[in-house]
């Protein structure tokens, strides 16, 4: 039916947000900022997000970016500009934090 078709061929923000939140929680859930673990955390978050996204089985190419920031009072801002097909492509950004870490994950999905 048309709704199913629509959900399979367009970027569904809510679904993707849930996937990403789980990936971040499971990788850095209760951790405190530790410089030595950053590389491991970044790879973990990005890789598990990407594998969960591909498991959705939709005809999309994905780009996942992740920024991890120590909570130090400094300001940070991200912006993106995209040239794509508005009817099928989309992006979503998930901001996650705990007492010592900020984590920002952006996902861009482009329909094939």
């Amino acid at each position, binding site marked *: 039916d048309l709704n199913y078709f629509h959900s399979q061929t367009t970027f569904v923000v809510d679904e993707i947000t849930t996937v990403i939140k789980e990936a971040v929680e499971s990788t850095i859930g209760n951790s405190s*900022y530790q*410089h030595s673990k*950053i*590389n491991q955390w*970044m*790879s973990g978050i*990005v*890789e598990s997000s*990407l594998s969960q*996204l*591909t498991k959705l089985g939709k005809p999309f*190419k*994905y*780009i*996942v*970016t*992740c*920024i*991890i*920031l*120590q909570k*130090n*009072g*400094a*300001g*940070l*801002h*991200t*912006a*993106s*500009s*995209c*040239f*794509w*097909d508005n009817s099928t*492509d989309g*992006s979503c950004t998930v901001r996650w934090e705990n007492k010592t870490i900020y984590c920002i994950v*952006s996902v*861009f999905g*482009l329909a*094939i």
Partner: protein
Amino acid sequence: VSFMDAGANTYLIRPNYKDKFKAGAAKECIREILREQLYGVQYDPEEVPTLSRALADSIKHKLRDVGFDRYKLIVQVVVGEQRGEGVKMAARCFWDADTDSYAQDIFMNDSLFCVAAAFGVYYY
């Protein structure tokens, strides 16, 4: 006898070598825009949202001007305050490595740092 138009079999599903997303050229575009727009700029929390959006848009326009037909473009810009703290940014992509690519550049001055990444994804 078969009748074939001159225009048959001309739809490309892979870019020619000269039409590929060139990471080097894209990096130059990014570098120029960052240098031009951030030279001497101080980190100002009121201005930064507008600034980062403007940077992303300028980079995207410049890349469109360079060419890269049949490519969908994604430009992500991160601007942060320089306070000596640790920041790390990573990206991973699920795409077609033959046709798709990315370019990035970093700009730093005393009060801010800026990371810009541009991804080019071929549209079949």
